[in-house]
């Protein structure tokens, strides 16, 4: 009887309805991850259009208006389409398995929060085909420029609302799952760091996303219903949008990067064969970063002309963020110190992620210095900085996490040789693309321009070569993932010699339903 019941549980519908109707956290996690990969291809293609146009001075491939559409959509797609869904996908797959829960707390809502995404992403892309095309105002959507835009802007506003609703539903689910569904005995301070960082991130999302929704709604009413929130001639304030946007936007940066810190904190101890150093300080550092992220927003807008006291306040609070972030980096290094290190692909991604993210963190510290920022602001130095944070922090963590947990998901080991190829090509492509952009910015190249003065040519060419290497390397990633799904060396339950945690106690591939009865925690 028992075996029959288990077999029954393993059954799931086949074909399209399995994916449309699914309430299974593993299926939904898979959907999120594939959606994210599709968006990465679209957003990456746009980046290649940008880099191809910037190969040399003059206009060759696209007109300035279309170039601006590319920069705006590339930003929106990578933030809302690639990084956020990828981390929600990882959360869906891993959090129930890591806390010994049978599924997410709110499975039907889980289905809904995923299935809002494809229409939202489609709407975002459809804006390209609206009269006048997609908005040409950057992902930050500053008015009054966005008031001038065509109908494509309204597509984007609706799309941002839908993406926001999806994120809020997703975070409610994650909070409910973590707070209610932990196996008996798994106290909060025993949770894996990935679960902790996601818990904090989910609260950040709940607080930040509605603020963004408010900002874009005000844009919508300014555009169509005669309000003047951001129109100075009507008594409004264009700078207020920036305050509201960045009140969302800065926590958003940590929404993108805290789960990455969680991933690093899982992978590094595993391949160091040594427990995470300073677990408690990691938890408190995560919370400090989250708190500080709400009081630093105006460092994105030092040049708007704030009172001196305001600029000093935001400079000091921003510099403070370096302290808890530094604690995290020191803890990771201390975890590796005197470990027994091996360098499988996930570990390479984690080490590179910490190393390169710290470059972005330190350039962020430079940017926090208000007077110096007057030279850095809105140049390629900023572009280099946030790609070192978001690509090296978040995207490398996502790729590392996929290599780390893919044997658990598929039951097969990936091809280690190809994995290392993928890693090194990504490293070369990424650094060649973005490192020279630091120099471009310092030397005076503004961001978001389709054409540039002659002295910027060489570094732009390096950058373009790097971008194509980086993009092609990701096709290798797709190949590796498909190859691993279809077959390969069988993975054991534990997968990695140094792996600790509940997800490694179930067989690989993880059964469709895990922990129907809660595990015992020592």
């Amino acid at each position, binding site marked *: 009887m028992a075996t029959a019941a288990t077999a029954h549980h393993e059954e799931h519908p086949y074909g399209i309805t399995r994916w449309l109707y699914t309430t299974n956290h593993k299926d939904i996690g898979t959907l999120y991850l594939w959606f994210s990969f599709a968006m990465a291809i679209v957003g990456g293609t746009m980046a290649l259009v940008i880099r191809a146009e910037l190969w040399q001075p*003059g206009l060759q491939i696209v007109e300035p208006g279309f170039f601006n559409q590319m920069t705006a959509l590339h930003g929106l797609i990578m933030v809302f389409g690639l990084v956020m869904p990828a981390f929600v996908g990882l959360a869906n797959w891993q959090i129930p398995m890591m806390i010994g829960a049978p599924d997410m707390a709110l499975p039907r809502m889980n289905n809904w929060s995923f299935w809002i995404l494809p229409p939202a992403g489609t709407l975002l892309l459809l804006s390209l085909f609206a009269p006048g095309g997609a908005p040409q105002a950057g992902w930050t959507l500053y008015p009054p420029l966005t008031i001038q835009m065509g109908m494509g802007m309204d597509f984007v506003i609706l799309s941002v609302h839908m993406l926001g609703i999806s994120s809020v539903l997703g975070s409610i689910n994650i909070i409910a799952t973590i707070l209610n569904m932990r196996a008996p005995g798994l106290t909060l301070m025993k949770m894996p760091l990935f679960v902790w960082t996601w818990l904090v991130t989910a609260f950040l999302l709940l607080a930040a996303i509605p603020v963004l929704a408010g900002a874009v709604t005000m844009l919508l009413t300014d555009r169509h219903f005669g309000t003047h929130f951001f129109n100075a001639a009507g008594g409004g304030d264009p700078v207020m949008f920036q305050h509201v946007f960045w009140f969302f936007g800065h926590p958003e940066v940590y929404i993108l990067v805290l789960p990455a810190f969680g991933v690093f904190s899982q992978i590094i101890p595993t391949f160091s064969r040594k427990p995470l150093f300073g677990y408690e300080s990691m938890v408190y550092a995560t919370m400090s970063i989250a708190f500080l992220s709400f009081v630093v927003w105006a460092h994105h807008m030092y040049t708007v002309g704030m009172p001196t006291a305001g600029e000093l306040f935001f400079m000091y609070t921003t510099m403070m963020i370096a302290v808890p972030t530094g604690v995290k980096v020191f803890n990771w290094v201390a975890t590796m110190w005197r470990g027994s290190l091996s360098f499988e692909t996930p570990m390479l991604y984690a080490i590179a992620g910490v190393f390169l993210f710290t470059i972005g963190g330190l350039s962020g510290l430079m940017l926090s210095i208000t007077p110096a920022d007057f030279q850095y602001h809105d140049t390629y130095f900023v572009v280099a900085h946030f790609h070192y944070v978001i690509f090296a922090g978040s995207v490398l963590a996502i790729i590392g996490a996929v290599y780390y947990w893919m044997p658990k998901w598929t039951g097969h080991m990936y091809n280690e040789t190809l994995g290392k190829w993928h890693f090194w090509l990504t490293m070369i492509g990424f650094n060649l693309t973005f490192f020279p952009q630091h120099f471009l910015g*310092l030397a005076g190249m503004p961001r*978001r321009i389709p054409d540039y003065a002659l002295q910027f040519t060489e570094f732009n060419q390096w950058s373009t070569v790097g971008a194509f290497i980086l993009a092609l390397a990701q096709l290798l990633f797709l190949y590796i993932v498909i190859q691993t799904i279809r077959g390969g060396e069988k993975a054991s339950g534990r997968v990695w010699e140094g792996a600790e945690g509940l997800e490694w106690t179930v067989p690989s591939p993880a059964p469709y339903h895990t922990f129907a009865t809660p595990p015992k925690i020592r």
Partner: protein
Amino acid sequence: MAKWFIRTTRAAVAIVAAVGMLLIPTIAAAEYGFDFQRPVTEIAHDLLWLHHLIFIICVIIFVGVFGVMFYSLAAHRKSRGHKAATFHESTRLEVVWTIIPFFILVGMAYPSTTTLLKMDDVTNSDLTVKITGHQWKWQYEYLDQDVSFFSVLATPQAQIHNEAKKDPHYLLEVDKPLVLPVGKKVRFLVTGADVIHAWWVPQLGLKKDAIPGFINEIWARIDEPGTYRGQCAELCGKDHGYMPIVVQAVSDEEFKTWIGEQKKLKVAAAAAAERSWSKEELIEHGKEIYNKTCVACHQANGKGVPGVFPAIAGSKIATGPVDGHLNIVMNGKPGTAMQAFAGQLNDVDLAAVVSYERNAFGNNTGDVVQPSQVKALRK
């Protein structure tokens, strides 16, 4: 595993070398800018110094932390038979690496604060220039001298579209530079007319947003005569990349002479508006104005950009009643990128450009608009 690792590392090194070889010729030929442009004001010097200070501190921290990590990566490998230790916490260490960075930050905050206070002190200026950002040009008004003009990109479209060789100052040249005296404290009032722009000249150490409805204050005292170039730094629409800034710093005497000339030009322009102009004169001058002022949106062929900027060729406005055409050129169309040009162009320019538009692009209406008609409409 180790063998694979060595082989992939070797392959990676080979790829880096190959890419490097490709780039070496360009390295040799290029003048590379790695750092800030040479500063020419006290503030810009301070910013360069501050930038170097913070950068060096960051590099020292980075090398220190990752020196430890790379030592560990080399020494504590499983493949070398290193056995993992079991320690996993130390309150003393956590306190140390919280407190030390804090004090480093305090050390960085002190010079930053003093520099910021200096930058924000706009009192006791010798000269005030109002800077207004428009899509996509800069307007400069010398408030005490009653001189004002627009400054637009001078790089020809042919160079942008790769039909002609690019000048050394490609995209960084304007028809009329902002002329300023050296050694004087110049205060700038920065604002925007339509959307947000940002006025940035790296060598002066100045960047400030030009925001509609706000007036921001900045200042500079330029040390030496010369030409200093910059660009709009805040995304302001289609031609954001095409609104450069050129500052020409001259001695005080040359500056006074220049102001005198500007006043004479203004008188001459007023006189020109009084006489009657021939059709050929108007069309020739109008073409010049069109190519400077209108071409960015309505395009060189007058066909505009479908769905974004309307065509002038065959348009109802440019072939309909003259007054309607003048009205839209002079007063603009609210809620669109079409600006009110009454304040930007003089009577001759307006008459000429409207005459040109009514006879170019196959609009052959034969209409001619005289400066006097424009002048009458201004009242």
